[in-house]
């Protein structure tokens, strides 16, 4: 497929190779992801960070197999994927619980699809509900829960499918800051407990530094890999680490990288608005 594939890394469970995605829009073709290549090691927590409009979510959809018209390849444990793969579990940015199912029925959903017997899948679902700290809410409907709790239901549902790789697209974007920090702790704790390989898409630097082993910074349109930063902070981590000096240095370093991209994005947006005003007046 590709002539410049990155060197095979021992223990690489996910390999993204020269992925390029083009979209046709009314204003002409847009390159959402340009030649994106990276690997994720078994048990690693990798974050992809970038300004809005850099194509992070496009990468998410390509790896998740929901977007198939791309160039390049994505391999899971050596197997090329073209469509949703059972080794990859996705947690979406948007509210994605089923409002007509209880918490238990929501979490048991992927198990139901595989035809697991009812008693067993309820048992499994309970296990993951407890893991995300929602025990006691098993029979509630999502409408009765807070946004943060609903996002934990989504997380438990994806964990219940026992994916090799947990793929999350800004799962905390819609939550307030405190909830976001506490939920981050929960994710870290689960990730360490399960040694869960995790790929997190985010635009929040604190979140990324707090959780990741490595951070991949993307450029603003077209979305390329700008830099990959190793985060050498001790584990286990909690949100308390946010106050440390080393943490601050990483945040500053990544903000430095991002600022350039974000302001490019901002200028682009402004130009866009002006262009539209000019066109409509």
């Amino acid at each position, binding site marked *: 497929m590709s002539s410049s594939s990155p060197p095979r890394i021992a223990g690489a469970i996910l390999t993204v190779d020269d992925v390029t995605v083009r979209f046709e829009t009314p204003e002409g073709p847009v390159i959402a992801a340009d030649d994106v290549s990276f690997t994720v090691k078994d048990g690693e927590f990798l974050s992809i960070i970038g300004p809005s409009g850099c194509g992070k979510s496009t990468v998410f959809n390509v790896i998740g197999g929901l977007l198939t018209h791309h160039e390049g390849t994505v391999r899971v444990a050596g197997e090329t994927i073209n469509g949703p793969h059972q080794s990859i579990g996705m947690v979406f940015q948007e509210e994605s619980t089923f409002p007509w199912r209880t918490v238990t029925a929501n979490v048991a959903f992927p198990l139901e*699809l595989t035809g697991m017997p009812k008693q067993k899948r309820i048992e499994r679902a309970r296990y993951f509900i407890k893991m995300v700290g929602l025990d006691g809410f098993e029979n509630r409907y999502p409408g009765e829960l807070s946004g943060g709790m609903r996002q934990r239901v989504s997380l438990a549902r994806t964990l219940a499918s026992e994916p090799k790789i947990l793929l999350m697209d800004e799962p905390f974007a819609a939550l307030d800051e405190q909830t976001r920090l506490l939920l981050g702790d929960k994710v870290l704790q689960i990730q360490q407990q399960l040694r869960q390989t995790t790929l997190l898409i985010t635009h929040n630097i604190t979140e990324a530094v707090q959780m990741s082993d490595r951070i991949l910074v993307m450029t603003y349109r077209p979305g390329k890999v700008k830099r990959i930063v190793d985060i050498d902070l001790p584990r286990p981590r909690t949100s308390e680490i946010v106050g440390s000096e080393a943490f601050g240095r990483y945040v500053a370093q990544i903000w430095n990288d991002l600022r350039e991209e974000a302001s490019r994005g901002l200028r682009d947006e402004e130009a866009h608005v002006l262009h539209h005003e000019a066109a409509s007046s």
Partner: protein
Amino acid sequence: MAETGRLRQAASAGPLLSPVTLVRVAIILGALSIWELLAHSGWLYRDVVPSLTRIGAALVDLLSHGDYYFNLGVTVGEIAAALTIGGMAGLAVGILLGANRFLSKAFEAYLYYLGPTPKIIFFPIMIMWFGVGPESKIALGTLSCFFPIALSVAAGMRQIDKVLIRVGRSFRANTMQMVWKIYLPAMRHPIINGVRLGLGMALIGTLLAETKLSNKGIGFLIIQAYSTFDMPQMYAQLIVLFVLAIGANALVGRLGGLANIKSK
């Protein structure tokens, strides 16, 4: 939903003495006494406003005759048949239009504008096609309920939260699983709402057709009471009919309430 909240509030504020209940009782009593006054005043032509006791007697008379239940059965059967045929057709067409943008653009405007036209005027055609028996009433009921159900389902299909579909796909659900576990439950509100509108339309269509031309059914009984100028009987008929119609509507609404437990 706000109404149930208020009702519950009213109930918890004391079963009989809440101001809302008092106002309601006052309105009902006021209306009934004005009615009774009119009935005894003799100002109105003959039996137009019969006294409440005579209406009550007619009501008891009506409900104690097996004859009424036979005619009720006929009408309910016609409505059920109309709702089944029209509902199935509406569901199928609605899903097609909801799933396909091209078809929706090509045909939905026709349904949208034909939907609210008066259907009873098609009754002469239905008689020519299906005869004077129950079939023509079922046909008119079917025609009446098809449109709201089709439009409601089509709109519901388009309103499905796209992320739920992506969730299903990410867990590699097959087509049947997508339909049964995602599309249909996600569309439960518009489907139930469509059935509710459709039920109302089927009821009106069927009964109006019965009043126009038939020899059995509730509509026939009503028009018979009218033509023999048996006013207490007609009031009794209409009261029972409205109670049943509003009850059926509330029942389907309750069904919707069950399906939507606390999912705001």
